[in-house]
């Protein structure tokens, strides 16, 4: 039995985590102030999914990784300049909004259309990857809806590890409550996998991979379909930053014994 898969990684972009985020109202709904100026990165969970996809593809000859990403084309181009040096993939670009104020359902619709349009895609050999959440919308819902749209009813969320057995059975470790992982065995593809952090570090830059990727990345960006995904079905009544700044009592010269005693009293609720 052939164990070659189409590994489709769905990934959005997120503002660099070190940037300060400030919401603002616009005629079309909330947005981030200076959104176009904020440096972007591949969403951290989706990035884990991509690195795990690459690792899997290397172990399963004949497998191919597709990166399906919806974001403003200029932002995508910026991120791809860095990302394309990490792992080999074929980009499927969608020119659309990627901020946290878009609706998960509409985002899933755009992704589903783009995936359905991948030439020669065999859904029975499809591993549908993405982040279990995102650093933008943080909905935790997009991948499940996408899976349903593509007819994938074996879905796993918060996955940290995956193994493909010689029979084609897929073993997955999912995060559950109490710091435990639930281990499941699925007969075969297709499966949807919402990745947590996985087990792999960020790969080093590889200029050769970058050059190979850029041959397909630039044409993919040029032919990126415009998406109308919006939050039209979702109305925001308010979008605010948490305002509380605490008055921190700073103890610089307190003896260790006194600090410990104060902490113990506090812990015990006395």
């Amino acid at each position: 039995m052939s164990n070659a898969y189409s590994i489709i990684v769905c990934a959005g972009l997120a503002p660099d985590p070190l940037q300060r985020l400030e919401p603002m109202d616009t005629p079309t709904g909330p947005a981030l102030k200076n959104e176009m100026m904020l440096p972007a990165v591949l969403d951290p969970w989706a990035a884990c999914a991509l690195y795990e996809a690459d690792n899997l593809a290397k172990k399963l000859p004949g497998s191919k990784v597709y990166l399906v990403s919806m974001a403003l084309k200029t932002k995508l181009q910026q991120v791809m300049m860095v990302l394309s040096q990490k792992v080999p993939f074929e980009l499927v670009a969608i020119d659309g909004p990627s901020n946290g104020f878009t609706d998960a359902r509409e985002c899933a619709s755009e992704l589903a259309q783009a995936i359905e349009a991948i030439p020669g895609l065999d859904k029975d050999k499809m591993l549908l990857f993405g982040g279990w959440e995102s650093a933008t919308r943080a909905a935790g819902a997009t991948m499940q809806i996408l899976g349903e749209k593509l007819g994938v009813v074996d879905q796993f969320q918060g996955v940290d590890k995956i193994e493909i057995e010689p029979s084609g059975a897929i073993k997955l470790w999912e995060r559950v409550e109490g710091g435990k992982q639930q281990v499941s065995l699925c007969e075969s593809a297709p499966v949807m996998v919402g990745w947590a952090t996985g087990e792999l570090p960020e790969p080093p830059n590889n200029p050769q991979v970058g050059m190979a990727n850029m041959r397909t990345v630039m044409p993919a960006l040029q032919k990126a379909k415009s998406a109308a995904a919006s939050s039209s079905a979702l109305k925001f009544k308010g979008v605010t930053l948490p305002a509380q700044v605490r008055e921190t009592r700073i103890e610089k010269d307190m003896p260790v014994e006194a600090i410990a005693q104060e902490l113990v009293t506090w812990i015990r609720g006395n």
Partner: protein
Amino acid sequence: MDQGELSMDKILLIAHTEANGSLSKASLEALTCAKDLAASLSTTFAVGVFGENTAKALEQIGSCGAEKYLSVSGADFKDARYATDSYAVEGIYRKAQASIVIAAGTSRMNRVIPGVAHRVEGVAELHVSSIAGSATELTATRWLYRQRIEAVITRASRPWFLGVDSGNYTAWTGSTSAVTAESVATEAPAACKRSKVVGLESPGSGEQTIKPDAELLMVAGAGWTKKQADGTVHAQEARKTILGFLSKSGASLGGSKAMVDLDSENREAFNFMTHLNQIGQTGTSPRHQKGLSTCCHGEEPHAVGWRFINERRAVNLDANCGWARGKADVLYVADAFAVMAKVNELLSK
């Protein structure tokens, strides 16, 4: 259905049983949410429970005042499996025909709610922290950008499925009472059983360091792994101090990204700290009454890890640390090794 018909909203709580057949604290919190919402909308609510055997759970909440009880009970529904769980939730929803569906934000419910909402042409929101209803509008509050922006949202579409994160409502309490539940299904189609759960594992050392119900969260930062005043790393001492504190205080353990991404040199000493412990921008934001951060350094994106901690104290060597200043109630500028060793000594008495 549109907003003008809000007063006609029908509310349904869907919950799953735990391994012992009862409902979890998170599910009881979601029950409070459903009851409160029904009261504010002057309407009734129904309850649907699924699992291997739902009798104990239904009896547990038999006096909650639900108008109707629905059950999907059978061996096929014992384990958390997307295909069978979504079959159960869809069945309960179709029987109840509610317009608002509330569930606890457990890993099991979060996995299935968006997919089921899509199947029944509904919409879904997870990680909701509160739901408010009036005669004209229903709103839900949730966080965007990893707890950095708070949004209040509303939708005209129905059905609206809402997964409520644990820690936002008081768990419902009441006397047990026998109820007659309508059975929706007792087994799932074969097509739903392509996957099977083969076990539960504890990553790392197997130490139980994540305790969602603990009053206190201890956050350990990468400072524990750095060279100390004598120019050497004290990894084993740090391990002993941290695990000793967890044992004596009953605290849950969180870690910074730097701590869970440790290199192999330190990995063994801190094998009780895994990616599941990670809090912050790319980790979790757990809810505890108190939080004690030790050896943590960082700015706003990392501090979101204790967004939902009520009382916060920190021990580190930098008085201007962004993790603590303006974020903690008290910052002790001191050597955490010495302080925590003394704390352990006092907790032993």
